[in-house]
């Protein structure tokens, strides 16, 4: 009782960044719930990972079994369910990630537990959580409280919180897998790596980022001209890639790439958190957007609030004159 479980996400031998962020949040709030931070690790051959986690949690509770070699939502759910029954943690944190959202909602339904997603702030009041999440892609915040329960399941937004600095030596406890059976109805087949394109935007010095604000394919030549004057490569938001204006390997953000150019020039990009996560390493960010409240301006160094179709041609003209 009182403990904060952090469900560890790892893939192909690597611990994902979201864990360190969750562990930081967990360490800040654990005392509100009167418990400790427990990393919950499911995997096969993960002694190394358990050791790394010991530096950032009071305890690492870990299950090492061949059935857990690759993530499988069904098998994860069964094991997490049993661990919750046995240990009764107050909070279970799961990443609001492709892995997390594949298992957390089903777990919450199965166990009939309070469930809040994409949490960006958390505190405890009287032993119960109070949490903040967002609506309308960051335009509205919402504070939630919870019904009485033994355990609360929360998914935590990725790349929004500071990572923890490992500083302690927690205990490591290896336990038998509560559920060892293969999943009958869902089988892991393989990983398929993303295709590699002609330009590696993670290495680009200058980048023009294209967003949905550019509207149509036929406006891309205007952007290409802008790229020419900056000698920049083109990349873009998921919306631009989904629309087919750019190939997938030019997508910036959580499901695309993280870039670290000298200049990132965002044209008609709103700045969804999944996009911003990919431009944290950019030195200077410039954004043109007609919405003064677009979240991109929180990350930008210079901003113009206006119509990109007026700004971009004029900018090209000014810079071409040189």
């Amino acid at each position, binding site marked *: 009782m009182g403990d904060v479980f952090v469900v560890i996400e790892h893939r192909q031998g690597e611990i994902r960044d979201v864990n360190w962020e969750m562990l930081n949040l967990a360490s800040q709030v654990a005392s509100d719930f009167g418990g400790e931070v427990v990393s919950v690790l499911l995997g096969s051959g993960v002694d190394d990972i358990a050791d790394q986690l010991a530096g950032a949690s009071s305890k690492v509770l870990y299950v090492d079994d061949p059935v857990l070699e*690759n*993530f499988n*939502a069904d098998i994860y759910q069964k094991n997490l369910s049993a661990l919750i029954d046995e240990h009764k943690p107050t909070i279970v944190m799961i990443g*609001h*990630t*492709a892995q997390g*959202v*594949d*298992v*957390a*909602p*089903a777990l919450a339904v*199965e166990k009939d537990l*309070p469930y809040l*997603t*994409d949490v960006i702030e958390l505190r405890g009041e009287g032993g119960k959580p109070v949490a903040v999440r967002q*609506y*309308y*892609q*960051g335009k*509205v*915040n*919402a*504070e*939630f*409280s*919870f*019904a009485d*329960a033994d355990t609360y399941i929360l998914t935590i937004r990725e790349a929004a919180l500071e990572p923890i600095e490992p500083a302690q030596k927690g205990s490591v406890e290896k336990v038998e897998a509560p559920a060892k059976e293969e999943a009958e*109805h*869902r*089988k892991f*087949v393989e*990983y*398929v790596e*993303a295709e590699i394109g002609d330009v590696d935007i993670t290495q680009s010095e200058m980048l023009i980022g294209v967003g949905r604000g550019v509207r149509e394919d036929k406006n891309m030549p205007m952007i290409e001209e802008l790229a020419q*004057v900056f000698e920049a490569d083109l990349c873009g938001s998921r919306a631009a890639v*989904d629309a087919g204006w750019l190939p*997938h390997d030019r*997508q910036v953000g*959580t499901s695309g*790439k993280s870039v670290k150019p*000298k200049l990132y020039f965002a044209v008609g990009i*709103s700045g969804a958190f999944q996009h911003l996560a990919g431009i944290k390493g950019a030195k200077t960010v*410039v954004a043109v957007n007609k919405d003064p*409240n677009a979240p991109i*301006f*929180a990350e*930008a*160094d*210079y*901003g*113009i*609030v*206006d119509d990109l179709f*007026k*700004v971009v041609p004029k900018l090209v003209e*000014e*810079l071409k004159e*040189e």
Partner: protein
Amino acid sequence: MKTFVCIKYVPDTSEADVNLNEDGTGVDTSRFSFDINEADNYAVEEAVRIKENHGGSVTVNSIGPQDSEVTIRMALAKGGDNAIRVEDSRIYEYDPLSIAKVLAASIKDQEYDLVMTGCVANDDGNMSVGVALAEELGVPHAAMVKQVEVQDGKVKAHRELEGGLMEVVELSLPCVLTIQTGINEPRYAPIKGIRQAKKKELKVMSLDDLGLPADQVDESASKIKLNQLYIPQVEAKAEFIEGEDAEEKATKLAEVLKKGGLV
């Protein structure tokens, strides 16, 4: 293949100002324009393609207001066969698990092979309804799917993970898939389809019609409670380039970038 596809009618707020009502318990949606949720549009396309390639039918499910019927009919115009719209003011819409219960009630007694949802609703960002729905129905699922291959009695689904890595999984039917944007190129509704869609069945149901007791999905049933909404103070780190008009701003930006050695 009998497919159900769940679509949500959502406001497009990417360029809109969002204003709250006075006590911070709701958003003034009167000036928003609404349409099908982005990911759901891809889910409808995928469902229609599966029908075209493997036969069967597509039922469109939506919990939403009467105004959403235009959007539901659009999905029918693209190839959906019939639709169910659930409307009941008692449903607590902040709780994705309640939404999943209602959708499950509208599907579970019918014959189905495949249920598709979007992977995320752009207004609430819960990324949860599809997977919760699978658990309610007691069938397997895969979230964030960007490629589907229908095989005999099963589907192979490519799940999109961070960084563009794909995880391929195999699910037995029936199952639930939550569809990620970019999986296909959604079609526009053909004129003929729009005409035909007017005649297709669109059943409107309440919780009572579904046989779902309201106290399982209303505010009292929800284990999460909204305290209040507020507009976040975004610290605009940006130095805004001011000017009379767009051209002047562009000229000034050019100066700044030149001085900073960024061009």
